[in-house]
């Protein structure tokens, strides 16, 4: 079976500085991977490079997604193929209602895959269904994208999009930042509902807390642009007790 995501010896630069120095990891369908590590270890860089954010230069290695060369694709093409990044800080788009944004995006992806666009009634039915399951009031969808949303609302909006687009790879970048415990639980419940045998998740986080709610199959510790240790979910608890310091020394 082809792995869903294969990152092989990935080296990435931003301007003159190398951030990732040969990172390797494999993610199969149905798995949840957690990537932990101190600030500046390259966690967010990895998520951005997978999603295709401009400004990063890949100097070595490769990323295969369902066996295809992901680095050859434009970011919108990657989205249509099933790569979804839940942003740490979702942006605001004034004057564009969330509903309009969702419809434009879902239809753009469908079009790219050669599928027919959703008709308005079908789309509305679908959104209502998904929004209800996440406790999102329809009024929120009439507001500008993320404009005036609380931290919790923004993250729920990310999960809503994830549920709507049904991607095969979900990368959650620091989903717990800025959330109180109740908001975190709601968002995590939404993510857990999306776990399925043909979908994988990569959960990037600084703290173990999030992993109490989204229980990973694998945990990787990153430091200085490399994976320095991998293990099961117990590794996260171990880290909570000992901190990152020992790994920083290993990497240095």
């Amino acid at each position: 079976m082809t792995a869903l995501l294969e990152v092989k010896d990935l080296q990435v630069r931003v301007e003159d500085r190398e951030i990732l120095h040969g990172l390797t990891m494999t993610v199969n369908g149905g798995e949840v991977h957690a990537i932990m590590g101190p600030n500046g270890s390259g966690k967010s860089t990895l998520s951005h490079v997978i999603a295709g954010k401009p400004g990063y230069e890949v100097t070595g290695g490769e990323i295969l997604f369902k066996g295809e060369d992901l680095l050859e694709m434009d970011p919108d093409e990657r989205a249509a193929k099933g790569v979804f990044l839940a942003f740490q800080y979702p942006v605001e788009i004034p004057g564009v209602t969330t509903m309009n944004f969702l419809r434009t995006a879902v239809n753009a992806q469908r079009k790219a895959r050669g599928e027919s666009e959703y008709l308005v009634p079908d789309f509305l039915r679908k959104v209502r269904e998904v929004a209800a399951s996440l406790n999102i009031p329809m009024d929120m969808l009439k507001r500008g994208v993320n404009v005036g949303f609380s931290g919790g609302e923004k993250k729920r909006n990310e999960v809503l999009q994830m549920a709507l687009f049904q991607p095969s790879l979900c990368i959650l970048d620091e989903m717990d930042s800025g959330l109180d415990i109740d908001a975190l639980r709601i968002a995590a419940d939404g993510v857990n509902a999306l776990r399925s045998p043909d979908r994988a998740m990569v959960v990037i986080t600084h703290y173990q807390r999030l992993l109490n709610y989204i229980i990973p199959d694998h945990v990787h510790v990153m430091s200085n642009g490399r994976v320095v240790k991998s293990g099961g979910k117990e590794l996260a608890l171990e880290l909570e007790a000992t901190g990152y310091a020992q790994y920083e020394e290993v990497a240095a």
Partner: protein
Amino acid sequence: MAAVQETVDRVRQIDVDQYRYGFETIIESEKAPKGLSEDTVRYISAKKNEPAWMLEWRLEAYRRWLTMEEPKWARVEYPKIDFQDLYYYSAPKPKKTIGSIDEIDPEILETYKKLGIPLREIEALEGVVRPEGERRIAVDAVFDSVSVATTFQKELKQAGVIFMPISEAIREHPELVKQYLGTVVPTSDNFYATLNSAVFSDGSFVYVPPGVRCPMELSTYFRINERNTGQFERTLIIADKGAYVSYLEGCTAPQRDENQLHAAVVELVTHDDAEIKYSTVQNWYPGNSEGKGGIYNFVTKRGDCRGDRSKISWTQVETGSAITWKYPSCILRGDNSRGEFYSIAISNGYQQVDSGTKMIHLGKNTTSRIISKGIAAGKSQNTYRGLVTAHRKATNARNFTACDSLLIGDQCGAHTVPYIEAKNSSTLFEHEATTSKISEDVLFYCVQRGLSQEEAVGLVVNGFVKDVLQQLPMEFAVEAQKLISISLEGSVG
């Protein structure tokens, strides 16, 4: 390549190919001799069979113009205009009194057809399956210096509405024209308005009698065709007590290497409880990617809320012209009168826009609202210039102004120049201004969700201008939205 950089490059590529209205109509025309003199003024007046008082009015304006200087305060730069190197009058030949639409040169009809402007009423009624309740639009088409067709005249007449070329109105309704012409924009107002007063050739005249709500939208479509020709149209709209009218204006011109001058004057008058809604979609040729050619658009538009509780609302979508110099304004003379200005000004390439409004509060309890959205791309400069002033007697005057600018790329400029004067203590003026760039983060967020680069820019820009688009009549809003996409996106349209 960075996403924003890519967008900037795409935007930069936009040149003549993107301008869909750049074709030229080959017809014979009759022109006044080149240059400007008293003889030119007499020639135009004679061509129009004008009464002696009208000629006198023009000549007085011409003599005054000779003593005036071009305004220099706007943030626009252009080589000196040689006013003797222009034609001031050009009319499609043969020039005879047009009795029915069949007598119009078929080439001209074809031109308007290409532009999507229905001049045949039958076409307007039967051409397409119309959604229920859609409003019909009466059109006055102005080709170079003359009005070539005005539709739905009969139906409007039944309602008591006068809608005709101003050249006809001068002959048929001299009492109305005399009473109002030049009372909002006096012949001495400014260099270009004075020039217009001397040489204007045509334009629209509208009079809506007391208590009448005009049964359809009125529209004028301006087309400059002839080379080296200035277009100087003059529009006068009067809404008598309790009347209402909505008026739309559209403009295009062929692509040419040289610059063409357009200096129009629009005057609006509302009496007690009357309302005029004036919408413009201006898409004159903006010049090519090197900044060559394009229209110089020096326009004076002003409305006078003469009566109590009257209202004038300007809405403009400005995407064309090499240079735009335009400040549709409201004089709030009547007590409790209201002025509104909604504007979207888009500049790209080497376009220069200096536009805004003046809200002059003279009456008590007068209110005004200004919403301006400027979008600058390419190497363009986009300036909002606005004046809000309350007279000593304008107690309880209120104004709200919001000026937002959006920059695409790093070689363009957006400027906001507000002037605010309050001469009484009960006035309340609010001014908000923002300047933002389409950020890389916003674009990346959109493309990560599957939108293409162009779709992302279009979505963000349309969100930015939404408040203003909502003010346009429906038919125009759709056109404007498309126009915005075409103006900013290299590959769409």
